[in-house]
């Protein structure tokens, strides 16, 4: 293996080094890479938006038969955003915003309830099948207690006194263990990413490993 002769690989390698230079301190190289990155990503998003969304979902249904004339409504709604150019009509933007945000709010309610609440609660009941062995019984009770304490920790409208305060204390213990575990667990993945980049530099670019 020897050093790469591909101009693309060189480009990738130089950009990689420019970003790493930020670790020392902010400098013109990082700044250059940063602005190239911001520009290219935006250009990329626009291209994708154009080909994958605007053309098949808006342009074609509207301008090719059978014309989907109902799309005029969202276009009118979208045009209301231009109101912000004038002081008098700047409130017009509230209509598309209300439509968009209100629509998503309604859309999310059953989904949130299902995946963030019902599924979690469903899995937490202490059913007899969780008590098959001593270990599994202890674990099941621990999970149950931890869940109780965590929920109480987040209780807003009650003073943390007596039993409630104690439960909240237990809750924060579980929360801290969970945070520590998540932190430690993520370390591996992040180091792997760095190894991947280094393998690119050493293997694909410099050809020394």
């Amino acid at each position: 293996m020897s050093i790469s002769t591909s101009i693309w690989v060189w480009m990738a390698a130089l950009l990689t080094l420019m970003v790493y230079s930020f670790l020392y301190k902010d400098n013109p190289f990082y700044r250059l890479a940063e602005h190239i990155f911001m520009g290219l990503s935006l250009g990329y998003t626009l291209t994708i938006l154009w080909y994958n969304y605007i053309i098949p979902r808006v342009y074609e249904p509207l301008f090719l038969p059978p014309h989907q004339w109902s799309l005029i409504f969202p276009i009118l709604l979208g045009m209301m955003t231009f109101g912000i150019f004038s002081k008098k009509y700047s409130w017009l933007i509230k209509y598309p915003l209300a439509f968009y945000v209100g629509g998503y709010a309604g859309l999310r309610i059953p989904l949130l309830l299902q995946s963030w609440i019902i599924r979690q609660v469903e899995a937490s009941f202490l059913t007899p099948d969780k008590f098959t062995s001593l270990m599994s019984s202890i674990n099941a009770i621990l999970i149950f207690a931890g869940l109780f304490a965590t929920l109480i920790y987040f209780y807003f409208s009650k003073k943390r006194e007596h039993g409630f305060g104690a439960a909240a204390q237990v809750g924060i213990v579980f929360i801290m263990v969970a945070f520590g575990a998540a932190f430690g667990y993520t370390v591996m993945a992040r180091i792997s990413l760095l190894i991947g980049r280094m393998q690119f530099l050493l293997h694909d670019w410099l050809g020394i490993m």
Partner: protein
Amino acid sequence: MLIGLLFFFGQMPITVVATTDSISLKPPTNLRAMDTPNDHGESITLFWDRPLDISNIEGYQIFREAEDESLHLAGYAPVNKTEYLDQLGLRNNVEYQYSMRSINPEGVVSIFSELPPVVTAYPQWFKKNEVNILIMIIIYLGLVVYFVRIARKGKKIFLRRIPGLDALEEAVGRATEMGKPILYVPGIWPMDEIGTIAAMNILKPVSKKVAQYESRIIVPCIDPIVMNVAQQTVKEGFTEAGRPDRYNQDDVFFLTSAQFAYAAGVNGIMVREKPATNLFLGVFFAESLLLAETGNATGAIQIAGTDRVPQLPFFVAACDYCIMGEELYAASAYLSEDPRLISSIKAQDWGKMAILISLFFGSVFSIFGLRFILSWFSAG
């Protein structure tokens, strides 16, 4: 794609090899076909009983035929199954005739099972299996409305402190003292996430405070709708504080559109503009630590809050204060001091209590074999 598959299956020859094996091999019995309930149609569920002797059977072939579809192989199920969901190439309101046969590892097949009555797939108008979700929504909505009404009557509600929010005012004040701006990062997710909406809800009281302190707020955005909302919100905040003149639209801007490009850009802002206070509030993913650690290096006071559980540890580690999980949603109510908003937090607490009680009694009853509380929480 599916039509293509259907076409292929339609062309497949069906070879029936009649050997002694095929006679000893028994087909499944009691085949029943029905429309799959609670769906949009185009799906049929089959049930059957296993043959008595399954020792030599590898699985079952499922065949289907309709007026304009010749008899063809439509599915396969391994020997231990007694149920099959056929969803490939079915159409609504077409009569289908199903049949099955067993197949052994050598590819020898049995005779066909008895034919069940013809069946049609059709769509339903209501997901009966998720009626529990609908009921819960109605109850919860009722709670929210109830507490908002109570609040209108002027009843005070006790709320515990959230340290991160208490620190907010001080953090804004500090920026003014130092003559440096405040950076508000509203997360990297579009406006369709509730966490982002919460970030916008907090932005208004924050920008009001910023205007009162005559400070400057920088809001870089990654999503166009978030940017438009943020501009409206900050403008309104400044107006309410009586300082519309201090609002600078160029400070609430669209940075770029991709996660890590955004992180790179925000890092750039942090090291160059050196804001005295960084607020990371909203939906964050892996970039959380990139932002928080850079901000920490610049010496800014940092308050972070997110509903993304996996990112919380990083904010806890690298920021001065962390608003955890649902506290993010409560934050706008805390800051706004609007009694109607505050009161809805009470509904959240009632929800929590209801869940705790259900969990407790559901578990106790289930030990005695009563599973009705459990069934309220079965998802579909």
